């Protein structure tokens, strides 16, 4: 479109979209998060028919529709870094100052890798396949950030 318009009256008003929220982890999510916060344990949920162990928690296996909400298994707090990126931009929603490593970590005993932050290694040296372990947060927030980060074993 090639509408010619006069821009002389046009301007931009600065504003914001801001609303208060309260999010609920639910019973299942609370058990998972409290285990990390209070017991420093990472729990998975196992689907017996599929033979797969999932993390983060979910009520049922979406592949076979089996309810797995009670089938907790304890995972290791160590695992393998299977994939990663280096975050180099800075936005307000990011939990760390860039640059930092965001990785996919397959915990011992789990089939699905968990997305988390990897520290204690230079972004230039990181590679897939290294072993990492969870470092739990001193100051807890009731989210997955109660694991502060993972670091090489």
């Amino acid at each position, binding site marked *: 479109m090639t509408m010619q318009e006069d821009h002389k009256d046009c301007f*931009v008003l600065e504003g914001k979209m801001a609303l208060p929220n*309260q999010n609920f982890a639910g019973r299942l999510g609370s058990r998972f998060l409290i285990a990390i916060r209070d017991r420093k344990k990472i729990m998975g949920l196992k689907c017996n028919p599929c033979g797969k162990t999932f993390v983060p928690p979910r009520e049922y296996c979406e592949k076979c529709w089996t309810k797995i909400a009670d089938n907790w298994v304890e995972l290791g707090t160590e695992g393998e870094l299977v994939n990663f990126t280096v975050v180099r931009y800075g936005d307000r929603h990011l939990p760390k100052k860039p640059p930092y490593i965001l990785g996919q970590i397959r915990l011992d005993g789990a089939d699905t890798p968990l997305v988390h932050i990897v520290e204690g290694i230079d972004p230039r040296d990181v590679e897939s396949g290294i072993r990492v372990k969870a470092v739990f947060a001193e100051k807890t927030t009731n989210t997955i950030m109660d694991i502060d980060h993972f670091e090489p074993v």
Partner: protein
Amino acid sequence: MTEYFGTTVADIFATMPKRFKPEEAKEVDIAIGYEATGEGGGKWKATIKHGTLKVETVEGELTGCKTTIHTDAETFVGVTLGKIAALDALSSQKLRVAGDPKFLMLLLPKIFTPYAAPAKKPDAVTARDIIATIAERFRPEKAEGVAMTIGYDLAGEGGGKWTIVIREGKCAVREGLADPLTVKMTMEAKTYAGMMVGTIEAVTAFTSGQVKIEGDMAAAGATAKYFLKYVVPGATEAEELISLRVINSIEQRFATGPVMGRWFAGIREKKFLANRCPKCGRTQIPPREICAWCRVRVHEFVEVGPKGVVTHFDIVYFASPDPLTGAVRDTPYATAYVVFDGATEREAITLDLKQEDIPRLKEGARVRPVWAEVTTGSYRDLIGVELDEEEGSI
């Protein structure tokens, strides 16, 4: 006292000073009366001033209260515990507020932490059960270089004698008391279990002599940090359901475009510029790119007002909090639907009416704009309208 939902009205008032948040109440100056009728009820008065709280029971009349809450004891407890929604109780008149109800809805949650019923006594848990979990609750990272033996001599049902050995980052539990021990603790098994599940305060138990400590007192005090807190298995009564409170905020750049831009250019000059549909002639205030009825682009601007007539109005008694600050404007306030002189029928604009004018506001009243001292070209330039009485047309 009669319990509702396992709690008495008196419990709630007894914990009020503990739940009070003085830093949130610095600006507050209010006396709130409570009258809970029925079994277990009574009258209380809470006076909040200069960040202090005084709670007293009242015999006879409740006097000197700015806001008074009347309800039956059961509803009072239910609302306090969140078992009954406050809005529902208020709607059904089971809970009545004399004075401004916004204090109940907005002020109280701000200056008090919520009442939490104490967890049910997990009677089923014995000292033996708890000792059995010690090794798995051990935190080796906290006990680096620690070497000690702790003896427990726990008398009564569920009790026994155990030795906990911490050495080289490992922890083991053995039946019986080893010799020597770094420290030995003797008490009733019930007392130990109570301290571990949180129904008995440890400091009280020590100071009252319920716990006897022999050996290294300092070492005894340090042991707690080597272990994770004991959690009662299947303690559904006290189950914690996690929630996060956040304010999600994203900065925005709202474009005016040429049409709203022109409106703001007018506002800066204290003029109302409507745009007029070339087909039906209606004046759009504020102006829009198109006339929705005729589906034609609207180019022509006409000045309307600045005075106008109120066709409808809303007197608002229950302001909602500003989602950002939680601040609530004074009530009542009025929004008037104003048709400016020269505007077409029904093309009203909603504007705030000056608060002092509310008692005299009527449909058909004439109003004039109240402008900000400095106009910059935004909605903030127009404070609202006030009654235009010089023309005597009210």
